[in-house]
């Protein structure tokens, strides 16, 4: 019931992070939910997100010698996932005749979550509907805006972490985040940006 998975993965120290890769099963166990969540949010397709999560860990495993520990393991894995999303979207554009969203995540599925502390059934319905509206509006964002939005408001990353993950500078991240927030707010809730 509105149960939240902890995303507070402590940044690993340099020696630890490299060492951790030796025990790859543990890496998968720790980071799989996070990577899957990001991919599901980015693509809106549960099966595709699962496939790309596998691809992400396979890629990480084969490229583990390239991980120097300069960034956290989570940042490194998210960067790989981000590249996979970009490649996938590019390929999908090239194969536009294929229907690729057969197993798209149902918006109702996201809205089925029941919020904590709701006082009445009406309030529960209202909150679920707002969540669905946000989900729909996030799907309409540009790829970069959606990435920044998800990394901030789903993965709760700091601006510097988002910048490191996406390869943008901090001010660009802020601009994307601002625009994404404005669009989501206007589309989903119909509110003016002045309230931001």
């Amino acid at each position: 019931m509105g149960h939240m998975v902890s995303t507070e993965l402590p940044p690993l120290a340099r020696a630890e992070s490299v060492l951790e890769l030796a025990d790859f099963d543990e890496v998968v166990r720790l980071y799989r939910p996070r990577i899957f969540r990001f991919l599901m949010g980015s693509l809106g397709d549960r099966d595709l997100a699962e496939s790309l999560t596998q691809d992400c860990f396979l890629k990480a495993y084969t490229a583990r010698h390239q991980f120097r520990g300069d960034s956290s393991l989570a940042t490194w894995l998210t960067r790989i996932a981000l590249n996979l999303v970009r490649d996938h979207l590019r390929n999908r554009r090239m194969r536009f005749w294929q229907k690729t969203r057969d197993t798209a995540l149902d918006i109702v599925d996201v809205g089925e979550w029941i919020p904590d502390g709701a006082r009445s059934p009406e309030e529960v319905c209202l909150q679920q509907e707002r969540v669905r509206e946000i989900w729909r509006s996030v799907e309409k964002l540009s790829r970069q805006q959606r990435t920044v939005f998800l990394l901030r408001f789903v993965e709760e990353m700091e601006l510097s972490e988002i910048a490191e993950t996406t390869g943008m500078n901090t001010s660009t991240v802020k601009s994307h985040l601002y625009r994404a927030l404005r669009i989501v707010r206007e589309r989903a809730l119909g509110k003016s940006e002045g309230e931001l």
Partner: protein
Amino acid sequence: MNKQPEFRDVLPPDEVLLEPSGQFGNDLRNFRAAVHRAAERQTSQPVPFGWLNAAKRRRRDAQRRLVLAWTCAALLCAGALPLLHHSKTAGAPSHLMSHNMQPGTDDTALLEQVDTAVSESVPSSLAPLAELDNWDATTSTNNKMPLNKPEKKHVSQ
């Protein structure tokens, strides 16, 4: 003197940008919880044995497709090369002729060569045919063309 504010100047402070307040902030937190819940349903079960096998298979298939594509491209190139070579060699003589032929002098030389060839004396073995041609020319009427005229004319030349 009123300078138009740049986009970055009008960005709200980080605190406001990172943690929107009010109803919208609350909705964003609910959205986060909902996405976490939806993802948790998928990843709550332990990772099955051979979980990465599907990814390995996909990668292998992609590599095969790539190899196949390059092979096809190489075969196409190999098939097109002889055709290209042939078209080049076929086009070369006409090109050379048109390039080398000088108007006037070369025409004259060619005409002289043709004259020499046609004015050669008739070999002895063909002499009877030449006589026959002369005889035919004297005996035939103007309206009547001999059936073997082209061959004879050719022989007389």
